[in-house]
């Protein structure tokens, strides 16, 4: 099975890339600020002064933190590497362009998943209960992969200016947060609002989180999972295919 052993070898090398990413890029000060503190403050500015229950707040906070952390660094790794002139060296190694993309996604996933522990612990301390931990954890894992893959698609245009890529990312990230049932739950949205919400992958994660913590989601968890899987597959395929095309233009 040469294909299988090749795939395994490339996966292991993707892990090497991911561990390099984490050591170099994920321990920078601004990363933690933008990825963690920023969504917390954004959420607090919304929640303070309104009488919201912890059960309502935690799923939203979790969704936001997960979304922001998993998409915080992944878009700029590629331009950073190109600027630092390390990308060409990487591309001459016996790894596929998809392996580099996969490595960046894995790093982003690990970071997002690790940080998601923060709001969960806050929630547990404040007294939330999680009705079905299996479903809850699976949803976190799936959603983090989905958002990490989305983050990588932002850097498809072969610009090596992190600011340009961050601008593209922000144009997508901010609207997504507002249309995903975080601040206003799905059942309180008008029908047209719901239709907009359905184009955001974050909607489905927030819905599962509400189901697990508040005990009531708006959609069936099966639909939520199916939608998340669908988005993930699309983002992965687009990211891998398009980066392969645009990567040589970066050097």
């Amino acid at each position, binding site marked *: 099975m040469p294909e299988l052993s*090749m795939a395994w070898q490339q996966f292991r*090398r993707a892990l*090497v890339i991911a561990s390099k990413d984490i050591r170099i890029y994920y321990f920078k000060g601004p990363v933690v600020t933008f990825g963690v503190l920023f969504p917390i403050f954004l959420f607090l500015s919304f929640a303070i002064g309104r009488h919201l229950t912890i059960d309502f707040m935690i799923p939203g906070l979790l969704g936001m933190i997960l979304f922001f952390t998993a998409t915080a660094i992944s878009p700029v790794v590629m331009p950073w590497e190109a600027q630092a002139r390390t990308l*060409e*060296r990487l*591309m*001459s190694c016996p790894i596929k362009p998809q392996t580099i993309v996969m490595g960046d996604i894995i790093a982003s996933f690990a970071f997002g998943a690790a940080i998601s522990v923060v709001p969960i612990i806050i929630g547990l301390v404040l007294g939330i209960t999680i009705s079905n931990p299996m479903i809850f954890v699976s949803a976190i894992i799936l959603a983090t992969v989905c958002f990490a893959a989305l983050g990588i698609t932002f850097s498809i245009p072969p610009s090596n200016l992190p600011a340009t890529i961050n601008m593209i990312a922000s144009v997508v990230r901010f609207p997504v947060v507002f249309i995903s049932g975080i601040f206003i739950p799905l059942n309180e949205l008008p029908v047209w609002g719901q239709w907009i919400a359905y184009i955001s992958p974050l909607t489905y994660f927030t819905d599962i989180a509400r189901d697990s913590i508040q005990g009531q989601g708006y959609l069936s968890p099966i639909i939520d999972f199916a939608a998340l899987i669908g988005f993930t597959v699309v983002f992965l395929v687009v990211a891998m295919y398009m980066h392969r095309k645009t990567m040589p233009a970066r050097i």
Partner: protein
Amino acid sequence: MPGAILVDSEAIAVRNITKRYGTLNAVNNISFAVRQGEFFGFLGPNGAGKTTTVRMLTGIIEADDGVALIKGSRAGSLKAKQMAGVVPETANAYIDFSGWDNLMLMAELYGVASGKAKERSQALLESLGLIERKDSLVKTYSKGMRQRLILGMALVSDPEVLFLDEPTSGLDVQSARLIKDLLRSLNAAGKTIFLTTHDMDEANQLCDRVAIINKGQIVAIDAPEKLRTATRGRNSVEVSFRSGVNSESLAKLAGVKELEKVGDKYRLYTDNPSELVATLVDYSRAAGLKIVTLNMLAPSLEDAFVALTDKEARHA
């Protein structure tokens, strides 16, 4: 595109590769072969297509046409990349990693077993003069140290074929010399080396054969000495005096076709160097000048290069 016939003794076989950027043919239908164990130089002025060619051979970009094989595997395939060590033109190591960690990263990406990787890295850092700084972050390395490390990173997988794109460009003398010595001993140990450079001396000192590329096309390919001797004319005599000399009177000496001041020396171009040497000795005696050095110069590789690339320029 099959049809490319690989001869066993060829480490690199290039058949009619072309790379276009818009309407520009950066590399235009070039073919050549590098033998197993050969030290091959790839010379050309800036923008001639050297880097584009190396990038196609190392799988960083794809050729639009043609085929290149590295030890029988298509350039850019995982198999070809696995056999190659690469020092890209403007590459850098990870500056937030130590030299040691950079080597380990490369070893892991090439799938080198950990024990072997450590052993090799230790030996490489020693021969590259970096062993004492192996745990310092690359940020704190000088340019020469970084370039030596990058060469180490290309060697940690013990590649059969080594591609180097201007590896000594802009380096201090010591680093450049260390790199050249190392390349020589690698080649002596049987490695095939593909070196691009615009430094004629370097090519002359190191390469078994050189190809000269200009405007995306190969204009000559041969041993440096053969290219040199095939270049017509332009013999000269180089002379320096202890004290100042009137350059006009030098230019008027019999047989001098052209005079050029090169640093503290004068280069006198002539068709008959041995006669000019005698003339110069007589002249200095008569003028009461003391000669410090006196050399006859045959056309250099640089002359050959200029002649070949100029001719091309005129044709274009």
